């Protein structure tokens, strides 16, 4: 990080040098064109080192010991919480709950908030582009509680179509759970506007920011959402850790999902009293190296600058869009030329099965993903069973895009309509 800090404040990042921060990319022989960052990003050396350092020098149980190592561990864990709070501009540090993932965070809200506060007959709104993680928990809540699952349709460009989402901002809506960025289309949804309209009816909004945090500046106070979730592994951080942001008053009315050590004050045979927030939601031994690695990832990203990252990815995505558009028989989903679009492109080529496209790409050293991307409702809307998807990070470059185009042409040649 010293390197990044010593550069003049206003100069552009040296993207070529930054790519070398990622050992998986530099260690790969032949060259790896990693275009699957939306599934999980690669990790910079700074994050790998932070984890090793934690285990080699500062490892101890968090919140549980009176000796130096345990104090250092507890302080590092809480400092990581602070880092996340600052990164998403939470008003209070205790509005950040560590979870194992975005998925757990959504399940926590579904169980602990929706399960406690929604009433039979009320509507929970999601969109047609939700990841299963932001779809299935609500489906279960509806089956259990008798609430109704409603779906915001998409227009031809893959944008949310509020015109046809009748009653979404009405009195019968109990919750809106919506993704900030689609992991298939790359669409960036207008969360601020949605929350503003929802607020008039005091409708809580949960934002699935798994594809947003770490990819663009995310400000929970500006969004003014009630809940927001993300995972570290999609933003250069380690696996096994994510977070839930919740407004203090919302967290105060949320029940814990997991019960166990560290989340109670007094335990009696018959009943128990929960600890304060956010400890209440963090049952079990805290994941210290996860928190430390997560904070290191955020520091790494902030050293580059979120604005620079966003711009870089937009440029790469535009270039990829142009390049792919020129390929005969290639269908791009969503509206990638729009400015409200992040670094994700989904497509199909001729009638070639996406598995074959991805496999042939792999034989070219290009890592893309094929499948339904955990978005079956969206696939139904698009009328396909799967797509190929290329997703871009700031560590990608022009050669990655050229290699992708070459691979697609090869796939056409091998398997395309004859």
């Amino acid at each position: 990080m010293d390197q990044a800090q010593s550069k003049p404040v206003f100069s552009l990042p040296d993207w070529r040098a930054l790519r070398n921060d990622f050992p998986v990319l530099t260690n790969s022989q032949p060259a790896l064109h990693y275009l699957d960052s939306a599934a999980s990003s690669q990790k910079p050396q700074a994050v790998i080192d932070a984890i090793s350092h934690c285990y080699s020098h500062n490892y101890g149980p968090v919140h549980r010991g009176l000796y130096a190592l345990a104090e250092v561990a507890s302080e590092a864990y809480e400092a990581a919480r602070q880092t996340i709070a600052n990164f998403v501009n939470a008003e209070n540090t205790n509005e950040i709950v560590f979870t194992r993932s975005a998925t757990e965070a959504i399940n926590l809200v579904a169980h602990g908030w929706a399960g406690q506060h929604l009433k039979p007959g009320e509507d929970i709104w999601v969109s047609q582009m939700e990841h299963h993680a932001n779809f299935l928990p609500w489906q279960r809540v509806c089956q259990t509680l008798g609430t109704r699952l409603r779906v915001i349709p998409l227009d031809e460009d893959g944008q949310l179509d509020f015109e046809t989402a009748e009653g979404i901002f009405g009195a019968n809506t109990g919750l809106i759970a919506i993704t900030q960025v689609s992991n298939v289309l790359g669409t960036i949804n207008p969360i601020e506007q949605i929350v503003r309209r929802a607020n008039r009816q005091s409708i809580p909004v949960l934002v699935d920011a798994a594809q947003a945090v770490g990819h663009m500046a995310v400000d929970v106070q500006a969004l003014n959402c009630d809940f927001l979730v993300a995972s570290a592994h999609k933003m250069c951080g380690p696996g096994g850790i994510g977070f839930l942001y919740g407004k203090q008053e919302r967290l105060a009315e949320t029940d814990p999902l997991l019960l166990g050590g560290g989340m109670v004050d007094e335990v009696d045979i018959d009943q128990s009293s929960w600890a304060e927030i956010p400890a209440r939601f963090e049952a079990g031994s805290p994941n210290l190296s996860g928190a430390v690695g997560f904070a290191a990832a955020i520091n790494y990203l902030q050293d580059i600058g979120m604005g620079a990252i966003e711009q870089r990815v937009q440029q790469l995505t535009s270039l990829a869009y142009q390049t792919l558009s020129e390929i005969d028989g290639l269908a791009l989903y969503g509206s990638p030329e729009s400015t409200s679009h992040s670094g994700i492109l989904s497509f199909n080529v001729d009638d070639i099965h996406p598995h074959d496209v991805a496999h042939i790409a792999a034989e070219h050293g290009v890592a893309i993903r094929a499948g339904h991307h955990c978005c079956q409702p969206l696939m139904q809307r698009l009328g396909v069973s799967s797509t190929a998807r290329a997703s871009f990070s700031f560590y990608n470059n022009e050669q990655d895009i050229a290699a992708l185009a070459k691979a697609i042409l090869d796939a056409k040649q091998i398997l395309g309509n004859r």
Partner: protein
Amino acid sequence: MSNQSVYKEVLLDHFHNPRNKGELDGMAMIKRGSNPRCGDEIEVGVNCNDEILTSVRFRGRGCSVCLASASIMTESTAGLERQQAQQLTQQVQHWFEDKNSDPPDDDALAALSSLRQHSARKKCVLLAWVALGEVLDCPG
């Protein structure tokens, strides 16, 4: 593309010119196999005469590997005794599940060999075979 490619001549030939593919009208026994993770669906139909497979056909959609594997399967099993076909089906499955297993004794299957190193394609290769196995396990 490298020499390691799984997209070799025989496989591509079966994909572009699938054998015994089409409607299954008139087939005595039919089973469906599907892979919800990628939306692939195959139906396999078999006619038997005196415990001999007189005809093996398939229809459906899937990736090239899935379709080529089904096509190869129809050629490799038609004409076998039911028990022989069952054995071959099991051999193929075992071949893909256990990296140290020997190849089945049918050279026509060699075109699938390079796929063994791609665990993610196992389901594609086996979709038709699993359906055939179910057909053959049915008393009938």
